[in-house]
């Protein structure tokens, strides 16, 4: 008979809470960075200079067609070979930002492509500069159109951050591993961490769906 002992895991709640906090922190930083990077990419591919558009397209394809764990290992284990040494947390944020940026750029581009031509022409006719046309006329409705897809992608990146424990960033999955290496309750520790991830994913979807229209693109 299988005997489960969740109490042995739950008494370690301060460690789990710290892990949850770092996971949330990594996600917050990489969301901010990834959205900026994505906007830059989308701009480069829809209105920027041709060479920059090609660079952005190459970046998007490389990131979207390689696993996140390999990107993370490349940054953390590979870059020191070039003399660039990153802390686990910095490598994690950087990898998550770079990863989200590629997907965000692709998602945003779809929203930008759907902008009616007439709106851009109307904005130009009002003597707005190209930068103003992009940030005031094209971007907000594009963001609003694709926001649900963007929220899903941010959640995928948050869930992906579980891998960051593999380079010893002390996020949630790392703490769960640490707990079960102490009390040998591997299954229970993993279940608890998994449920915390699920709760975080649900909370994050609520938060972003609420915050997006208010903070990013008006209603």
């Amino acid at each position, binding site marked *: 008979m*299988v005997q489960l002992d969740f109490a042995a895991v739950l008494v370690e709640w301060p460690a789990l809470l710290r892990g949850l906090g770092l996971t949330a922190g990594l996600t917050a930083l990489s969301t901010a960075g990834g959205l900026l990077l994505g906007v830059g990419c989308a701009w480069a591919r829809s209105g920027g200079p041709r060479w920059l558009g090609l660079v952005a397209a190459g970046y998007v394809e490389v990131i979207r*067609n*390689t696993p996140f764990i390999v990107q993370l290992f490349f940054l953390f284990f590979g870059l020191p070979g070039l003399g660039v040494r990153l802390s686990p947390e910095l490598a994690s944020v950087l990898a998550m930002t770079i990863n989200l940026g590629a997907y965000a750029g692709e998602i945003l581009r779809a929203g930008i492509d759907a902008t009616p031509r007439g709106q851009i022409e109307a904005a130009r006719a009002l003597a707005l500069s190209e930068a103003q046309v992009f940030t005031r006329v094209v971007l907000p409705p594009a963001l609003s159109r694709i926001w649900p897809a963007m929220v899903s992608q941010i*959640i995928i990146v948050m869930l992906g951050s579980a*891998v960051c424990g593999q380079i010893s960033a002390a996020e949630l999955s790392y703490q769960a591993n640490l707990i079960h290496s102490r009390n040998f309750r591997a299954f229970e520790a993993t279940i608890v961490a998994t449920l915390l*991830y699920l709760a975080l994913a649900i909370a994050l979807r609520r938060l972003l769906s609420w915050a997006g229209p208010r903070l990013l693109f008006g209603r």
Partner: protein
Amino acid sequence: MVDFSLWDIVRNLLLAARWTVLLSLTAFVGGGLVGLGLLIARIARWPGADRAVGAYVQVFQGTPLLMQLFLAYFGLALLGWNVSAWVAAALALTLYTSAFLCEIWRGCVLAIPKGQWEASASLALSLGEQLRHVIGPQALKIAVPPTVGFLVQVVKGTALASVIGFIELTKAGTMITNATFRPFTVYACVAALYFALCFPISLWSRRLERKLHRG
């Protein structure tokens, strides 16, 4: 000290990449079958199936694949089965794939106009006949591009099996790094091999999508 040429590294990675391909195909085929079963249970309105499958999909989409792999690995061991990393990885990835494919295909079935259901029902077709002759073929047409696109996610997902010790491309990369002390080269090669696997599938999926929209 043994010297490793670039070819030694690439050759060993290529050998390991066979396992990435095999694991991807296993998860994709197995996940497709399970996903189809779940979808049919949902469409056929079996009592409780709609909520149960909905919850199943939500759990697999709302938790990290890495945790699912750990759960399969530790969970099967807890049940007293001493399973290899291969079995645990294949099981977790199959379930993960089934949840996503079920949801993707449900969207495709829902996209079929209601009139098609009503027309086929008025011809006295049973649910099985409706699915096989009327709804299935039409849903299949729109389902192919996103399904092929999801295959890329499956291939990338297999990289996580390295964490529970299954020796595929990523794990082989880690092992070769430990032997050669050339992480930059090795991980660049690993990434290049994944790219070589995934990029053609991405292009194929995009071409199918364009063809579909042209009609």
